[in-house]
Structures are given as C-alpha cells and as structure tokens.
C-alpha cells in the first residue's frame, strides 16, 4: 500500500501535502492491521471467548522430590491431582495421559536447559509443567514452571512456600499465573461462587470455590434467602432475605462481623454491586412501582435509575460501571434494556422472544447473557451487544436460569433442572459446550453468582 502511494507521488508530483497525508493514512491503516497481533502476541496464546476453541494439550509431569521422603512424595501427588483438576476445569486446556511421556523431568531435571523439548513436541504437548517439592518441618515449598515446548521457552516460573494446608491455594495461585500468561486474564482459580441452597431445609446462602470445592454456609436466617451478589473485592456479599418478614437486602462483610440492611417499604430485591465501589443497584417498590435505584450500602438512595410504569428489575453493571443492563416490562413484555448512567440514554437490547430477563454483562463488556422463555421452555442466551444477534446456549435440557460469567469470561455458571427435574448448579464454556454439574449437594441449588478473582 505504501509503495502504491509512492508511485502515485512520482506520477502526479504536484501535491506533496496531499501525498504525505495519503501516505500517513495508508500507513495508519497498515498499522491497524499489524499492531493488534503484535501487541497480543506476547501472551494471547488463547482467546478464551472463541466459541470454536480447540483445547491446548498440556503435559503435567511428576514433581521432583528434593528430600525424597514419604510425606514429600504424598504431598507432591496431592498437589499434582489438584493442579490437573484445576487445569482440566478450564475450557481451553487438556492435561495429557502420562503413559505417553518419553522422559521424566523429576529425574532428569525440571529447569530450562535440562529439558529435551523434542520429547514433548513429539507427543503433541504444546505446554509442559514441571514441579519440585520440598517438605521440611511441616513447611512446603513448591517450585513450579510452565514451558512453551515448541518455542523451548519458560513462560512462568514461581516458587511458593507455606503450610501443608495451603497447598491447594498455592497450586491455584500458579494456575492464575498460567491463565494470565496464556489468556491475558487472571482466570477463575481464585474466584468463588455464591449460591442459594435448600440442603439444610430453608433457602440459605452458601459459597464454594470455582470448582465446587470448599462449600461454606454463609446465612442461617432459617427463612427464604435469595440473589447473592459479590462485591468487586470479594469481601462483601449482598443478598435478599425474608428474615424481617418481607424481602429486604442484607449487606454482609465476610471478613469482619458487620453489615447493614436495606429495608425500604415494599420489596428490596435483586442487588448488584457497582464495580470497585461501595454502591449497589437494586429494585425497590416503596413508590408502588418496581424501579431500579442506585444506593449506598446503608440503603440511602443516590439516584433513581429507571422511571417507567411496569416492572424494572435485575440490574447488572457493565464492567466499567458506566452502564446498567436490566429487565423491564415497559413495552408490554419483559425485555432487556441498557441504560447509560451518565447520559441517561436508553436502548432496548432484545427484540426476539416475548420474555427476556436476568441479564448478566460479560467481563469483556461485549456480550450479555440472559434468560429467554419460549413455548414454556426456559433457556440461556448470549447476545453480542454490537450486532444484537442472540445465540441460544441451552436447549431441550430442562429449565435453565440465572447465568453468571466467570471472571475471565471463559465460562458461565447457571441453574438447570436437567438432572432429575431438580434445580442444580452447572457450569459450561462460554460457547455453551461441556455443561457439567458443579456441586453434588442434596436439595435445590439456585442463583449462582461468580466472584472476581481475589
């Protein structure tokens, strides 16, 4: 393109300014084509939101045991199991069967220079993890490395030290580093999922790790509790409870024993935290009409966000906190709308179907997941905001509700009745592939909310 303009310059020769402008223009266009891949090449090995994503094969080798005693070997095995489980949980990595491995870095060496990468590229391993473990007086040290086998390059090298009880946490920290290297995002490994469960009788709020492990009961109101929502820093949880006789919003600090209750007259429901702020959006009906308000954590009204006759409910902030997506019945049927908080401009986002609710804004800000009801069938859809085209992610598998994005946007957690007609929590890849049950708890599990990583 640049050479073409040069030719033109020789031909005409009389308008140098315009030619320079032309040259600059084409140069800029050229930059547009070349720059993004150049910038991204550093770490964007994997685009986690690509629906046609092929899983990258990864070899996790045995850990080198530095002292070689029984306990060290055992903890090493546990650590490997946690590591493989976490990596396989992602929708983009696949750990390989060790039977195929041609060499054993636990014996031949775990560092760059000690590894024969052809042993790994030869069996199709694009990524390799080596590890070392030292156990001394109850203290564990893990030396973990991730290699790019085709480029014979160290991508991540980390040393973690801590008590044996924190091995799971150390492994997940390493997984977050892997995620950041491969996808440019910190991933899901240090995130939590809050949900509603009837496992102990009444609906109470619970939380678990990203993989369904480490389940903890958060509320004991012994009544109906609903709609948990994490604050950006993961320290606060907002939820709805009938503990005071009607639906009110409870704000709870999970680290210190403090909180507040938002209990305006009428209902106080569907809380969502403003990103990075101690503010919430929620639907209140004290005016007689269900409207969305911006509130302080004490429940003081900062701003009324919606003003239309009919139901306005389920607000969800854009990742930059500048917009809110919500459900509204203002046009006669419930549809999804987006409101800009500053300019107050409003757009209707859904036009297909007669019942679209429960929107969830994707972490990259480009998509909205929501629930659509057609012919009595309740399913999850994802819509690209720019094109407005919805894609149905669940189909003919019971009722599917409450979508919530994983913090890296690679997955969605949701409620489904596909398993025995009882609502249970599932995760699937953002493209709708590989749906799998997250928890094996008894009773009904609903309304999952995925936190940001800590």
């Amino acid at each position, binding site marked *: 393109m640049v050479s073409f303009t040069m030719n033109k310059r020789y031909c005409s020769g009389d308008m140098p300014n315009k030619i320079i402008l032309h040259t600059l223009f084409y140069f800029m266009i050229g930059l547009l084509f070349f720059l993004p891949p150049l910038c991204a090449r550093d770490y964007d090995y994997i685009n986690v939101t690509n629906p046609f994503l092929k899983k990258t094969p990864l070899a996790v080798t045995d850990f080198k045991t530095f002292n070689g005693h029984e306990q060290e070997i055992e903890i090493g095995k546990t650590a490997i199991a946690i590591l493989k489980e976490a990596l396989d949980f992602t929708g983009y990595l696949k750990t390989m069967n060790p039977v195929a491995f041609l060499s054993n870095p636990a014996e031949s060496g775990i560092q760059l220079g000690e590894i024969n990468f052809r042993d790994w590229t030869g069996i199709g391993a694009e990524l390799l993890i080596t590890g070392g473990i030292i156990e001394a007086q109850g203290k564990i040290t893990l030396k973990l490395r991730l290699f790019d086998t085709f480029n014979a390059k160290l991508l991540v090298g980390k040393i973690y030290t801590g008590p044996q009880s924190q091995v799971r946490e150390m492994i997940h920290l390493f997984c977050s580093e892997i995620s950041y290297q491969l996808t440019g995002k910190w991933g899901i490994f240090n995130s939590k999922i809050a949900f509603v469960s009837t496992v102990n009788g009444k*609906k109470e709020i619970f939380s678990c790790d990203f993989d369904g492990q480490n389940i903890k009961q958060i509320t004991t109101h012994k009544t*109906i509790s*609903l*709609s948990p929502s994490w604050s950006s820093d993961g320290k606060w949880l907002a939820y*709805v409870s009938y503990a005071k*006789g*009607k*639906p009110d919003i409870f704000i709870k600090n999970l680290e210190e024993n403090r909180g507040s209750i938002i209990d305006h007259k*009428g*209902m106080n*429901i*569907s809380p969502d935290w403003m990103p990075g702020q101690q503010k919430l959006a929620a*639907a209140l*009906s004290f005016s*007689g009409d*269900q409207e969305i308000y911006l509130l302080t954590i004490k429940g003081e009204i900062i701003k009324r966000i919606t003003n239309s006759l009919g*139901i*306005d*409910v*389920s607000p969800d902030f854009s990742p930059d906190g500048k917009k809110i997506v919500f*459900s509204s019945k203002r046009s006669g*049927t*419930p549809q999804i709308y987006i409101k800009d908080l500053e300019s107050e401009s409003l757009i209707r986002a859904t036009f297909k179907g007669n*019942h679209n*609710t*429960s929107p969830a804004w994707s972490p990259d800000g480009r998509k909205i997941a929501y*629930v659509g*009801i057609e012919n*009595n069938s*309740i399913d999850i859809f994802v819509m690209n905001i720019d094109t407005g085209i919805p894609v149905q992610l669940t189909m003919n598998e019971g009722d599917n*509700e*409450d979508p919530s994005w994983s913090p890296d946007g690679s997955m969605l957690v949701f409620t489904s009745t596909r398993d025995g*007609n009882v609502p249970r929590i599932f995760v699937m890849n953002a493209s709708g592939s590989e749906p799998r049950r997250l928890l094996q708890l008894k009773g009904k599990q*609903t*309304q999952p909310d995925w936190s940001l990583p800590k």
Partner: protein
Amino acid sequence: MKNRVWINLVMAILVAGLFLTVSCAKKTIVSDATTIEDQEKAKLEADAIAKAAADAKTEADRIAQQNLEDQMAREKAQKDAQILAAKKRFQYEDIYFEYDSSELNDESKTGLIEKAAWLKGNNSTIISIEGHCDERGTTEYNLALGDRRANTVKSYLVNLGVSASRLKTISYGEEMPKDPGKTESAYKSNRRAHFAID
C-alpha cells in the same frame, strides 16, 4: 230323756244360728273394710296420676326449655359457622391472575368485591395481601411480578372503600407455590393473591 235330746237339738240349732248370725255380721264389716281399701287405692291412684301429670308437665317444660336452648345453640353455632365460613372464604379463596399479568379479570374483581364486604364487616382486622407467581420466569422477575399483583389487589380494595392502612402487601414470587406440580393447572393455581389475617 227325749226332751233333753230336743233341747240339745234346739240348742245346737240356736248355737249354729248364733254362729251364722255372727258370721253374717262379720261379713258386713269385712265389706266395709274393702270399701275403705278401695277408696285409699283410688286416692293413691289419683295422687299418682296427678303426680305423673305434674312430672310430665315438668318434663315437658324441661324439654321445651332444652329445645329452646338447643335451638339457640344451633342458631348460634350456625351463625358462628357462617362467620367462620366467611372468614375462611376470605382467607382461603385466592384471587387468580393470567400468566405474566398483574391485571384483574372479571372473576377476580367479583372475588375482591366479596373481600371488601368482609373487610368492612370486620373493621378491626389488618390483613396481608401476598402476591404469588408460577415458577415460569426468573426468581427476581417473579418477585417483582408478585409485588405488582399484591399492589394491584390493594389498590382495588382501597377503591372499594377499604382503608389502605389495614392492607399490607408482600411478594413471595415463586417461592411458595400452592401446587408444586409442573402442569398448566398447577401454574394456574399458583398465580394468585392470597389473604392472611394478621
């Protein structure tokens, strides 16, 4: 000696006569005694009849009294039952809605006119109007829909002259279905406004 025989014979006859006379006189007396007995019996019988009559009258009075009391109790029970039935009807007869709607149809309005009448006749009661939904639709949307249903019912009752201060509203969304089934008829019975007396 022949004379002695005659005398003895006469004597014997006389004695026999005497005996007979005596027996005759005695018989009269016996007859009198019988009369007295009969009179006494008659008197006793008369007394018994009189007493029976008196008793019967007392019994009749008692029965009449009892009947009266029974009837009063019956009437009271009937009235109580009617009041209770009206109260039960107020509490247990729900107002129904169409799918995804908080509008009142003619049947719902008729039901609410009866509710308003009961409320006006029971001035001291304070009630909660609960809005419920079927399970279709999301938890949060249904909470809002239930809130709207309860508010619509409240407004209608206020328009019929019931004081707003006696009417509380609460939404339960899809949390407390009347029928947990997944049929159209279950959904229909779950889309309701329910009345609870505080």
